[in-house]
């Protein structure tokens, strides 16, 4: 039995009926809301009501948002300004009784002239660059494949998302075991494929391999996140654009380069921004996997900062370093957001 096609006029009538019903329901809702508001207003004690009556809408708005603003000031803005102040001093948090001296820009000069700090910045840049590149390429490819909506795609989406749901502490610890040259599965797998003895595959001990071991783990964990954002971008592309392209006999390749990629680009750029900011301040995974070693090979900026602030207790110095990092991330992110806006406006 086949369904009888609905004539166009009847279809319009059904739509109009549904709109009317929606309006009626909304009216009932608004009436109820007004009644509730009235009853609340009546229940308000007269002295309080008198006070509130004198406040303008703008004043009322300020009244509502002021607790949030105060909270933000207390936990975000004040510490920022306090850190800026400390960055010009020799303050040490572990010596509260000591006289705090104003050093001017000496902390900044020392940091910017410190070879080890620049090495840490290079290590951070290496980590950020390669993780973003790999995560974007793999994440977008996975999103594109999942968007094909093949059989079981929902199941595979869930499987792919699992690493992202794990705690970085858990990920760091179990990858440390996976990388273990004598008993680790990773070393065994590489050994099985290449024939190199597993005990020679020292991912975390070898100066050349250690930076890549962190890139691999971060890519494994966070590619699903990039994939999700890319998938949202791909799903937002209207179907009719592809239909029009097919009418114009555009090849799949052409459709990808002229429709898919440009229209998903703002989403990809957003994913890059999020991952870039996150990885610039990466700490937990590196700390668990290598602790910055071997030597200082994987000592990213956040590890250096933590060591200066909470192990060496050079609070003034580390505040200056934190401000430098903040300005760097903030500046780069601003430039990037402007580029992102331009891409969106195209």
């Amino acid at each position, binding site marked *: 039995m086949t369904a009888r096609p609905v004539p166009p006029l009847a279809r319009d009538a059904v739509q109009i009926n549904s709109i009317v019903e929606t309006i009626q329901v909304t009216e009932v809702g608004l009436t109820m809301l007004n009644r509730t508001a009235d009853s609340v207003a009546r229940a308000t004690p007269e002295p309080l009501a008198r006070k509130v009556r004198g406040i303008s809408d703008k004043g009322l708005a300020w009244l509502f948002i002021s607790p949030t603003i105060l909270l933000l000031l207390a936990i975000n803005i004040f510490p920022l300004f306090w850190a800026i102040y400390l960055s010009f001093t020799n303050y040490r948090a572990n010596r509260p009784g000591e006289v705090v001296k104003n050093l001017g820009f000496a902390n900044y000069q020392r940091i910017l002239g410190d070879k080890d700090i620049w090495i840490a910045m290079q290590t951070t840049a290496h980590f950020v660059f390669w993780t973003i590149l790999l995560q974007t390429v793999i994440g977008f490819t996975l999103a594109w494949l999942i968007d094909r909506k093949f059989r079981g795609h929902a199941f595979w989406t869930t499987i792919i998302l699992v690493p992202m749901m794990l705690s970085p502490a858990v990920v760091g610890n179990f990858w440390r075991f996976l990388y273990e040259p004598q008993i680790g599965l990773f070393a065994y797998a590489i050994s099985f494929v290449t024939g190199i003895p597993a005990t020679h595959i020292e991912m975390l001990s070898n100066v050349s391999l250690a930076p890549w071991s962190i890139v691999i783990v971060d890519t494994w964990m966070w590619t699903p996140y990039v994939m999700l954002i890319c998938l949202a971008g791909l799903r937002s592309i209207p179907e009719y654009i592809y239909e029009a392209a097919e009418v114009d006999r555009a090849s799949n390749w052409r459709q990808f380069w002229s429709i898919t990629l440009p229209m998903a680009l703002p989403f990809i750029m957003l994913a890059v921004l999020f991952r870039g900011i996150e990885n610039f301040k990466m700490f937990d995974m590196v700390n668990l996997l290598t602790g910055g*070693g071997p030597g200082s090979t994987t000592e990213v900026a956040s590890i250096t900062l933590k060591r200066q602030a909470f192990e060496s207790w050079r609070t003034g110095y580390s505040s200056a370093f934190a401000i430098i990092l903040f300005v760097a991330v903030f500046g780069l992110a601003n430039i990037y957001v402007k580029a992102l806006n331009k891409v969106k406006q195209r």
Partner: protein
Amino acid sequence: MKSTLKLTLGLASAMFASTALSSVAQAEDLTLCWAAWDPANALVELSKDFTKQTGIGMKFEFVPWTNYADRFLNELNSHGKLCDLIIGDSQWIGGSAENGHYVKLNDFFDKEKISMDDFVPATVVGYSEWPKNTPNYWALPAMGDVVGWTYRKDWFSKPELQKEFKEKYGWDLGPPATFDQLKQIAEFFQKRQIDGKTVYGASIYTERGSEGITMGAMDVLYSYGFQYENPKKPYEMEGFVNSDKSVKGLEFYKALYDCCTPPGASNSYMGEGVDAFKSGQVAMHMNFAFTWPGLQKDENVGGDKIGYFVNPKGPDGEQFAQLGGQGISVVSYSDKQESALKYIKWFANKDVQAKWWSLGGYSCLNAVVKDPKFPASQPYAQTFLDSMAIVKDFWAEPSYAPLLQASQKRFHDYVVAGQGSAKDALDGLVKDWSQVFQDDGKM
């Protein structure tokens, strides 16, 4: 009605009494902070006697070694009241004394007739005194410890290995007397098949995050002639820290790491060392003496299979070992200092110290360690005594943390990552340490 009233009053007074009693009990409870390791478990057992005698309950806050310094130095710096008593690391003594974290114990010792002469001298200097070698006491020596070595006695005594070793090196396979001999043994065992398993030469300290590689490298450097400063001019380090002898010592440590450690041992400290030895991976194992009671009891590698030896001599015959261990102090921010001092008094008692040793703690009391029965009391007792006689310790300055961070970086960069030379590493260390002392206004 009367009976209901009586019942109500009775219940109310019982509730009041129980609340009051529990608050009294809580007020008397002391919290002792320390690292989470085997001796801490022994101390829990030992402290039950204190509670029995005094009625003062004991609570414990134990933190793993990797977070021990971070956690408790934060606690002290923030003037926290978590710990009434703390067994702090020997290097904290300068900072904790100068920053007022610890209660000075001189008057208390005088009043209770606790004499520091009754304790092993090295532990008094290392754990209690600040400034060093002055009679200003901030802790009671609590847990003696020193870096020493364990070896696989069963492997060393295999006739075929003894024969092969003698042919190759010309001397009998046994506990090494010098570091050169130690390296020869390590090379001999490296990647050797024993009982169908590949084994390795030695497990040494290489940890980067806290203090591991510094403790290990210094353990060798001391016997090679390393000195922290000019004995005649404090804080003058040029030519002492980076002397030719020191350079040779650091080169030796790197050579030992390169030739003779198990694969992946680039971040190894106390726990990893114990694992390597217990799992039968290594022939020799550098570690603090506190690990020995546990290893002695181990079914696979303990008993007759394990032997102990003192840190070997350097090329010029000098012989030193890195001091470990801690003293017990009363935290100045505690509201229960009186009870905490009672614990210290109890802990200093000879019988308590003897029991402390029998449970697996390392007593620092002369009456215990100089008892004629002591060397035979445990297979490792004599090695412990011999090691404690040759100890040296890292800086215990208030700025010990940045000093330690600098050595961790310089040593790991050279030994594990192979960056630069030993001379570069030690020259860099002089520069870093000088900067720290300049910041402190001491240079």
